């Protein structure tokens, strides 16, 4: 029996019934990851010893009749943005090369306690700044559908690991689309929970008011099961929601079309989308209508300013957050010649340790926060954030969820946009509003675009704290497509072993 290609929920059932051991499953995925990582470069770090030790612990407990979670024994890949005490943590940056943290991120602790063996740490754009992984200091990850193309970013290591079956589950982080965009362009599922639903403790911060950790998976049920494992209040994160949002897996299992009202955002359904992506989105809408779902158009005029506001708020917050990389407490230190002051040591270290996109955003953020410019840039961007929340409140008074295409295009070629920062920023045009407003969003595969045969995704957005509603509709859309295809889209991905 092979475990490759099975969903995490199927693997969890096999392990729970005793038809497979966590060690067998973990070993098969680990062997595959080790053998194929040179093709996709999904992982920055793999550790067989720690993965197998965790799998053995899961099996021993299982033998004693204990089950720690609904995903007990299923192995997982973790984005390198989360601290781990037993593996180096770099956030895709040279400034943190070889850093061994002294504490686990809360999400990592929860994975360990739920007995999910960690296979390794996945590649990402440096400090999660990017949408292609081309800004990783360690080189780009590749899309398993076409190795010359990007797997999305910043979480392209996690998305390529899922699409290439180098892991059955993965963790991502999403500041402006870093879970959802990679999921869309690799034919996988990715969900950004409501801001605060999952603890950010131990996540290397990019923009603290936007960052959220979430699942990257093969199916909507897998994502829901994983969110149930990692969510919950954490006293270590003061922005963590005090209340539980309920079981997402239940929302998936009980999903029905009854009374469902769906909105299409006028501003995110027309211009700027690849023809094939638009066609697939229209097909999703037609499928919902055929089920008796009421679909209406909603107007969110402030969405037009979302990308602009985001690229002021994010650099402003990032320039403050990344001040901690100062050559003093951890990470790189570069010593200029002579007897330099600490300030010169810092400047030389940050020059050598940060890549071009990180420097660009830190300097942009420094500008946006400068006295004399603060009101015009950062201040106005924060007001746009209010307007977007107001647009969404109005939209959600008419409908249960909104749907949009997740990404404006399918996966582009490596190198195509890397020298055009502004073009790169527009990849997240449909995903950014959710981060600005703190609402949950999930990307579900909705087919292969006619021009290039590459995957596309549909995004479901729900009101804040209504993650269950988002999972419900995500599961319904997935059902309609699986009924048509006979299997999830990911089953159509080329065989990585012969690519």
């Amino acid at each position, binding site marked *: 029996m092979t475990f490759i290609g099975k969903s995490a929920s199927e693997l969890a059932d096999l392990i729970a019934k005793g038809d497979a051991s966590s060690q067998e499953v973990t070993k098969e995925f680990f062997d595959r990851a080790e053998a194929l990582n040179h093709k996709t470069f999904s992982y920055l770090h793999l550790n067989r010893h720690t993965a197998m030790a965790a799998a053995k612990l899961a099996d021993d407990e299982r033998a004693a009749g204990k089950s720690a979670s609904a995903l007990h024994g299923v192995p997982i890949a973790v984005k390198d943005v989360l601290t781990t005490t037993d593996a180096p943590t770099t956030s895709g940056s040279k400034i943190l090369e070889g*850093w*061994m943290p*002294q*504490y686990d991120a809360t999400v990592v602790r929860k994975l360990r306690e739920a007995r999910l063996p960690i296979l390794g740490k996945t590649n990402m754009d440096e400090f999660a700044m990017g949408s292609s992984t081309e800004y990783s200091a360690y080189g780009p990850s590749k899309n398993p559908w076409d190795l010359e193309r990007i797997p999305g970013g910043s979480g392209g290591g996690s998305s390529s690991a899922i699409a290439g079956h180098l892991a059955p589950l993965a963790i991502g982080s999403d500041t402006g689309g870093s879970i959802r965009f990679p999921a869309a362009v690799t034919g996988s599922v990715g969900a950004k929970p*409501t*801001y*605060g639903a999952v603890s950010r403790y131990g996540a290397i911060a990019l923009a603290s*008011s936007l960052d959220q950790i979430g699942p990257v998976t093969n199916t909507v049920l897998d994502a829901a099961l994983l969110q149930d494992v990692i969510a919950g209040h954490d*006293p270590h994160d*003061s*922005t963590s*929601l005090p209340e539980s949002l309920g079981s997402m897996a239940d929302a998936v299992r009980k999903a029905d079309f009854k009374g469902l009202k769906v909105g299409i955002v006028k501003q995110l359904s027309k211009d700027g989308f690849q023809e094939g992506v638009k066609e697939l989105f229209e097909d999703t809408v037609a499928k919902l209508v055929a089920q008796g779902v009421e679909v209406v158009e909603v107007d969110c005029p402030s969405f037009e*300013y979302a990308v*602009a506001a985001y*690229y002021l708020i994010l650099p402003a917050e990032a320039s403050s957050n990344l001040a901690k990389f100062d*050559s*003093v*407490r951890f*990470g*790189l*230190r570069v010593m200029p010649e002579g*007897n*330099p*002051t*600490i*300030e*010169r040591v*810092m*400047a*030389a270290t*940050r*020059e050598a340790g*940060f890549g*071009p996109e990180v*420097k*660009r955003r*830190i*300097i*942009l953020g*420094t*500008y946006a926060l*400068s006295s004399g410019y603060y009101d*015009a*840039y950062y*201040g*106005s961007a*924060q*007001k*746009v*954030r*209010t*307007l977007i*929340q107001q647009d969404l409140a109005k939209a959600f008074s008419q409908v249960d969820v909104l749907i949009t295409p997740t990404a404006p295009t399918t996966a582009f070629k490596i190198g195509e946009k890397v020298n055009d*920062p*502004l073009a790169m920023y527009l990849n997240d045009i449909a995903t950014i509003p959710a*981060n*600005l407003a*703190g*609402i949950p969003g999930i990307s579900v595969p909705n087919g292969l675009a006619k021009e290039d045969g590459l995957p596309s995704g549909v995004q479901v957005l729900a009101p*804040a704290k209504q993650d269950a509603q988002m999972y419900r509709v995500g599961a319904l859309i997935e059902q309609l497509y699986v009924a048509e295809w006979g299997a999830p889209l990911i089953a159509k991905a080329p065989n990585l072993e012969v690519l």
Partner: protein
Amino acid sequence: MSEITPDLVRHLASLARILVTDEEVETLAGELSVIVDSVAKVNEAVSGDVVATSHPIPMANVFREDVIIPSLTQEQALSAAPDAFDGRFKVNAILDED
């Protein structure tokens, strides 16, 4: 066109403690001008009576009990330091000698 001059880039980089090269300054000035022109459109959208949002989910006064909980030991805290001496982080002088 916004005024992101090479001199302004140098000034911002020094505030951000990044020692940029002359070549980087030229490139950044060009790139940042384009980006700033594009993001400046936020000003079209807002008027004075809109309140600013800094945090997406309203929360106020997040307190915990004032009790001591375990934290990193001094040894752990110093374990990743590029240089340490006598239980402290060791750094170069803050001021120039002259």
